[in-house]
């Protein structure tokens, strides 16, 4: 009985994995074959790199890569600064209305970012940040999830360490920088992984708020590249997609173990 159910579980897991991975596998296969071989599933067809050459020449990919890289970096730095300060305040500083304000922050978790897209658009324009990388990143910096995560991490730091640092002469910032931030390192790592992968893949908001190749991230560039008016060539689009996801995919494969461990450790605390 238990052996049977175990087999079913394994089978189910395998099935899910295959369904999940198949689009990626197909894109990978298509990227290295001519269009007709790809759509006809001609297994014996020769491999080719032509699609990559065509795709690379078709759009300013390097610019897009740099933009995406800047975008995730700017967002991550902004998030680290804001969630650290806010998380610390909610975890360790007594001020009137703290719980109420924290509930307001948490309510942000219930609101889909897409709902706020018009308001964010207006706000970013008012700030004069339309079509800038900072403008793309701005709405994500005060992340409620990040604040919550940091608050939990800081709450787990023993109060004696805080007091010892106080006796030794640290001020608020000294304690935060020398005690809390180093001790929350696993949480920072886990959060960074989530943040980077989310914003590397983010599409709708950058599509709306960017207007020129100078600010467009990879996702938006890719969608314009693959838009029907440019003619659909499944192999070339697959090649472009492979290029877009490659850095994140390779990073995930390399850091797979740390990736999973970071979550486990952040959870165990």
């Amino acid at each position, binding site marked *: 009985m238990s052996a049977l159910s175990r087999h079913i579980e394994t089978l189910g897991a395998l099935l899910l994995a295959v369904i999940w991975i198949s689009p990626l596998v197909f894109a990978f296969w298509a990227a290295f074959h001519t269009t007709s071989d790809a759509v006809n599933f001609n297994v014996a067809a020769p491999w080719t790199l032509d699609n990559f050459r065509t795709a690379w020449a078709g759009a300013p990919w390097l610019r897009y890569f740099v933009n995406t890289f800047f975008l995730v970096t700017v967002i991550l730095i902004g998030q680290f600064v804001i969630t650290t300060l806010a998380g610390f305040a909610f975890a360790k500083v007594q001020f009137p209305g703290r719980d109420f304000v924290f509930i307001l922050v948490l309510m942000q978790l219930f609101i889909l970012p897409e709902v706020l897209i018009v308001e964010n658009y207006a706000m970013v324009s008012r700030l004069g940040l339309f079509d800038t990388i900072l403008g793309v990143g701005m709405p994500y910096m005060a992340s409620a999830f990040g604040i919550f995560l940091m608050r939990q991490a800081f709450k787990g730091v023993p109060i004696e360490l805080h007091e010892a640092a106080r006796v030794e*002469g640290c001020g608020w910032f000294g304690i935060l920088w020398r005690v809390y931030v180093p001790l929350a390192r696993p949480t920072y790592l886990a959060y960074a992984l989530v943040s980077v992968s989310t914003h590397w893949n983010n599409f709708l908001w950058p599509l709306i708020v960017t207007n020129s190749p100078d600010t467009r991230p990879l996702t938006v560039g890719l969608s314009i590249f693959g838009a029907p008016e440019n003619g659909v060539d499944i192999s070339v689009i697959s090649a472009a997609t492979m290029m877009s996801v490659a850095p994140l995919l390779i990073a995930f494969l390399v850091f797979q173990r740390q990736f999973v461990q970071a979550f486990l450790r952040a959870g165990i605390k």
Partner: protein
Amino acid sequence: MAEPFVHVENVAKRWNGQLGVENISLSIPRGSFVALLGPSGCGKSTTLRLLSGLELPDEGRIVIDGRDVTTAAPSERNLSMVFQSYALFPHLSVAENVVFGLKVRKVGAAERREKLTRALEITGLLGYEKRKPGELSGGQRQRVALARAIVANQPLCLMDEPLSNLDAKLRASVRKDIKKLQVDLGITVVYVTHDQTEAMSMADMVVLMKDGHIQQTGAPEDLYYKPVNTFVAEFVGAPPMALIGGKALPGFEQAATIGLRAENVRVAEPGKGRLNCQVTDCEFLGSETFIGLSHPSATGLTVSMPGLKQIPAGEKMEISFADEDLHFFDDTGRRLTQPA
């Protein structure tokens, strides 16, 4: 007498509805070793935290080294602290932990290295500089905490049950080390403990507390030989002092309660004792055996007999004692100087 080094005047700290400490007054001479002793929840740790500045008093005044520090921040009080959990920073090495405060106070690198070496030498930690606290044994961690406390050369060191996480054997040796360190460095130590052996063996002055109030302040021998009330009498000493109702002893009816220590009790021949008791239990300790006795108007009666004794429970035993070994207390528990 010279101005006391630490002076606490009528300090009180209350939490909403909950009793903290009340009416605490202390004068601690420079270079002395003071133990704050008491059962858990008696306010000894609160008193220490008030001294450290981690809590601020609701009432009263605290003066350290001639300076009023009642509302000063912990870092402005020129003191160091050893925590019960040691409070070592797990992400820093031993060396970084020890010089943490020096670094915060922007002491130069050369001076830092010099002080670090000295502190590690004193605590016997040379060679462990690079280790993380997680890679050390309990005793070593304790010494790192001590090294951190002495490295800055602060004149006052506060210790909050620093030995309670060590095993019994280590505790005895570290006790001696701490005492020696205090004498060698000439610092003033205020030491919180619930273990009377620690307090009695290390301190020059013991402050016994209960329910947020100081019960008695004095040298260890004062607490032992002249307890000011029945609480002190029962708390200090192992086994605790026996308390006998005054009515049970002819000639001492005026005292409500009479105290008697086990070492002053003798087993008397049948018919010649002053109290007739029954044996309740025997506690063998190696060199002696404590024999617990019961008597209708006494609690905690014990007689100490040399070597191993096995007396069945329920057996009758008569005891005697000298009048000068008796302690007298009135009906509120306070000590009477004369057998009224």
